[in-house]
């Protein structure tokens, strides 16, 4: 099942550690591969904006939140396991 709408992501990372870098890289790669020009990524560093973590109830980092299209999906981790990510995002059918 493929979606035609724009994907909006929020990626919460904790500082610039290894996990954060990996998650950013991984997400960027996935988006480039499967959602070229159809995505928006907002990266939130919880160390710099801790109130965001509190407000959005983010306790584990990195955390990816897909805001659009519905439904809202939350994935925790560095996103290194790509098939799981794709499946959760509903992009599995678009496997390259």
């Amino acid at each position, binding site marked *: 099942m493929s979606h035609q709408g724009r994907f909006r992501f929020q990626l*919460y*990372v*904790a*500082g610039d*550690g290894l*996990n954060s870098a*990996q*998650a950013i890289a*991984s997400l960027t790669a996935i988006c480039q591969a499967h959602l070229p020009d159809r995505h928006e990524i907002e990266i939130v560093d*919880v*160390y710099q904006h*801790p*109130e965001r*973590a*509190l407000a959005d*109830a*983010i*306790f*584990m*980092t*990195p*955390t990816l939140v897909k805001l659009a299209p519905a439904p809202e*999906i*939350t*994935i*925790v*981790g*560095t*996103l*290194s*396991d*790509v098939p*799981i*990510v794709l499946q*959760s995002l509903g992009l599995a059918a678009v496997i390259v």
Partner: protein
Amino acid sequence: MKPTGTARAKGLAKASTGIAAFDEITGGGLPHGRTTKLLGGPGSGKTVLALQFLVHGATQCSEPGIFVAFEESPKRIVANAESFGWKLVDLQRKKKLYLMDAQPRYDLVQSGDFDLGGMLAAVAAKALETGARRIVFDALDVPLALLPDLPAVRREIYRLHSWLLEHDLTGVITLKSPADDPYFVNRQPLEFMQFMVDCTVLLSHSMVQGVSQRSVRVQKYRGSGFDESASPFLIGASGFEIAIGNTLTRSDNTVSTDRISSGIDRLDTMLGGGYFRGASVLITGFSGTAKTTLCGAFAQAACQRDERTLFICSDTSSAEVVRNLSSVGLQLERYISNGCLRMVSARNLTGSAEAYLVRIKALAIEHNARCVIIDPASAWSTSATDLSNQNVAGRLIDWAKRLSLTLLCTRMFDEMSRQIDGGPQLQISALVDTWIHLNYLIQAGERNRGLSIIKSRGSAHSNQVRELVRSHAGVTLTDTYTADGEVLMGHPALGKGTRRARCRRSCRRGPEASGRQARRRRGRARSAPEVTANRTRRETGEEGLAGAHHAKR
């Protein structure tokens, strides 16, 4: 070993928990600005203890707190804590306490490694906002279990450690203890957390003979002395209640030389004035020997002196006791209605000896009692191990002395031979100051009650066995008539006249002389033709004496 002096004197600041006995065990509380690990199985009370620590900090020490809940939702925790009367909602509103819902989502999708950075950032923000000084991570094993491998777990623990140091918070981490969590069997337990915790407290909750026993133990405390033994506790109406172990010092209490009445004049005389104030008195005897009557007499005497009294009846309901006592002329209702006497029926009080002790203490303090009666005190010996039994008896007596309470306990003897194998049960008799024993004497077809004072420390007490006589008018002791060295009670000693008359006669006799000879002489000189007595003697073939008896008359 007990640490002495204030916590700060030793250089290590301590954060008080508000649980008096716990603060005493640890010499002031948990290490301030450091981390404590709280280990225990399910239902052992970790969350309660941690929460109580925060509540105390928020209300009494001006230290707001944060509770990070990994296992339970904050709403549930607040609701469950309502019964303790801690007013959590109020504290939350005033920003003295913040409960953070950090439960992992059930629909969590995980891809790759993660860390707890987000949580720590969020908590830091909150701590800054509220000025929190205390923090609890409840069930930290839950998020750690989600981490992919052991190195990740270790890394996160290091992260938590540096974070706590950086923010100078007094932290409490609760974890399921290794034995109870099967997950720990597979993974290296979080034992290596040892490096970061300065204090480890273990809570255990076990069943002994079907009775729940809880105990708390400080396993380690860097930089401080602490009481190393396990202390029993229970979770009571307002939170943790811990019983302190045997204290070596009892130096505070002043010893009194006042005497208070036992409720029976003649018994007071036998005791050399009455019970000492602040003494512990044990009344033993078989079932039906009038132990409760003596308790009632003591209660009445105490209330007549306007001394608040607590009467705990473990065998029957208090209403029944009052009714039964009124049949022997002890009217306790008026003292109950004016509030001087409080009767508590403890029949349904199940639980360990500890639970019993804690409840008794609480009741006594609540009632502001000066006299405490426990009838019978053997109710707790059916539960719990023998060791804690004896311990409890000793602690009860110690506590009563510390507060200068006069303590009256009764205990039933099943058989004297139990002394050999029922060791701990009877050792309470070695601890008390006064021991009065009631028994039956069967003579000439009658069963009469005899009272004797086995010991009374500090008093020159009578060594006679007296008959305890109860009637509608009241309770009293009589002298026993002796004939040829044989103690006679009841009708054999009575002859003509009613029992009451005999009481009057014996009361008129004046101060008792010592020794049986004098008594016997008096008895013979006075007694009216004691028909039954004579008959007895005739039957035993002592006619000569009978004749002599009549002659003297």
